[in-house]
């Protein structure tokens, strides 16, 4: 019954979770806590991107637009209508999803480069509209003084630590949902569309509906990330829907490894950690990251998580081979099993 207790993966996750929970107490200063909280917010959005780019295989560049949309909807509702965060956040997520579904209806009729360019243009449109719609969004000045998430009963979200735990809770929810999706029939359907749209359609998969589903789920989480961002930073400007942010998300995803569950979190933490430790060369950041992006897609398309997995599989195979030659007993089934595990 408790099979998962025997899996090393489960224990690894448990340790990671424990580290995440005690992090505010072991963090040497509050600055690190801020950086990690912000990384977690971005990671939620990167999980959305991972679903589309990694699992569905469609390079959508409208994600920063959705992130900004979520942030602005949440920010505007709480500023202008004085709604509570716990109401504005779901509304922001739903609004983002609705917009994304409309975008998806148009953009999924196109393919390949056309899709990439179209989604990029939609991202730019969202950015420009938010920037130019002075009366509503405050234009380039942005929205200032967005209220913090309101307290639930005895729990308030005033201290940095409590906000960290709030974001962590949503991150865990995201990871849980994403890993469930990845291993479910729906996730496999997405992967089949990535591998060959024609083949998937031949098997009776409704390609359009599945693409829309992935797009909608991704936008939902991106919207949540946007709302969390608005409640955490409490100041938002049109820059948060700039396509450059999409490119950063893409960078985080690629560093971590696309189509993996660990990838988005690992990539976001590593990239943001690097950025913060290279603070003195803030200006050169994109010079380094630009080249890094090219090197990753050229030499390590799997990213950190993907390449590690490949390495582990290789090591396991070598280990098994050695064991096999020593015992001299053919264990075909076993090596197959390990191989399968490597692709899970």
């Amino acid at each position, binding site marked *: 019954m408790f099979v998962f207790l025997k899996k090393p993966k489960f224990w690894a996750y448990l340790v990671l979770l424990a580290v995440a929970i005690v992090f505010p107490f072991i963090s040497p200063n509050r600055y690190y806590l801020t950086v990690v909280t912000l990384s977690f917010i971005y990671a939620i959005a990167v999980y959305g991107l991972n679903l589309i780019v990694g699992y569905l295989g469609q390079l959508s560049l409208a994600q920063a637009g959705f992130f900004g949309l979520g942030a602005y909807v949440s920010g505007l509702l709480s500023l202008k209508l004085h709604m509570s965060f716990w109401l504005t956040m779901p509304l922001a997520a739903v609004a983002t999803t609705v917009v994304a579904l409309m975008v998806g209806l148009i953009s999924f*009729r196109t393919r390949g*480069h056309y899709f990439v360019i179209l989604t990029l*243009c939609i991202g730019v449109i969202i950015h420009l509209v938010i920037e130019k719609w002075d009366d509503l969004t405050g234009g380039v000045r942005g929205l200032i003084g967005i209220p913090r998430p309101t307290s639930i009963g005895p729990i308030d979200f005033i201290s940095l630590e409590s906000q960290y735990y709030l974001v962590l809770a949503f991150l865990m929810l995201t990871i849980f949902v994403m890993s469930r999706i990845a291993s479910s029939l729906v996730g496999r359907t997405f992967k089949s569309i990535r591998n060959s749209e024609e083949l998937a359609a031949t098997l009776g998969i409704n390609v359009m509906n599945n693409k829309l589903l992935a797009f909608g789920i991704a936008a939902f989480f991106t919207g949540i990330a946007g709302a969390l961002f608005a409640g955490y930073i409490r100041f938002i400007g049109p820059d948060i829907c700039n396509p450059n942010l999409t490119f950063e998300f893409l960078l985080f995803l690629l560093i971590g490894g696309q189509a993996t569950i660990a990838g988005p979190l690992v990539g976001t933490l590593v990239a943001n950690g690097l950025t913060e430790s290279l603070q003195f060369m803030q200006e050169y950041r994109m010079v380094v990251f630009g080249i890094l992006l090219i090197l990753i897609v050229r030499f390590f398309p799997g990213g950190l998580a993907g390449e590690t997995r490949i390495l582990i599989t290789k090591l396991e195979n070598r280990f098994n081979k050695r064991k096999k030659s020593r015992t001299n007993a053919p264990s075909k089934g076993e090596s197959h099993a390990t191989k399968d595990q490597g692709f899970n």
Partner: protein
Amino acid sequence: MNLLIQQTVNGLTLGSIYCLVALGLTLIYGIMEVPNFAHGHFYMIGGYVTFFMMTLYGINYWVSALISGLVLAVCGILLERLVFNPMRHTPHSNQFIAAVGAMLFLEASARVLWGSDFRSIPAIYDKVLVFGGVRLTEQRLIIIAGAVVLMVVLYIFLKHTMIGSTIEAMAQNRDGASLVGIDVNRVAMLTFAVASILASAAASLAGPIFLVYPAMGSLIIMKAFVIIVIGGMGSIPGAVLGSFILGMTESLGATYISSSYKDVIAFAILVLILSLKPSGLFAKGAR
């Protein structure tokens, strides 16, 4: 009425600049099927090279433009050799990401090297000509004339020279071109060189009117993509037509619809076209 004529000329100017950038982009797409996202940033670097040649070394405007063209040709070849050629057989989204990487690198490098200030290439031809109430600076006429000359030169190069026709041949049929002994690598480098020269020429022409700054490439590259989607990716006449359609629409739209939303117009057109016709307006067959 005067306003209309004035805006038409402005639209033509804008269209000429777009045209030179979009032609390069469509040439590269036609040969390599690579959406070269860094192309707009070549435009930016071209502008900077011309600017520094003129202000630092006091070189003549036209000579500076020529030098900038040569520098950019080398940059184009380097990009092709180092980034796109090794990635030819990877999925298209990876090439797109690599192009984005090149773009981020170029913009950040420009920022680090030259700062984020707006600069303007010194205008030599800044006399204002008046034709029956319509006021034009000479530079605008030079932009339009320069673009036309370059287009004619490009046409002659592609259709009536041996090297140029290898590009055409490759665009029409890659395997066929290799079969008759055309060197794929040479053509790819040549295409990138020609496209980069066009981008730098566009920047040199536009520099005295529009400004030179590190982010100047990112908006124009997206518009150039809009143009080649409108015109059919890889199609040269389509790119020319699309550029002038976009230049006109923006210029007239800014006057008669809304000037603060003028940049939205281009992207709205694209969304409209692709929602009605997902394969582009003048798509060559099905891809």
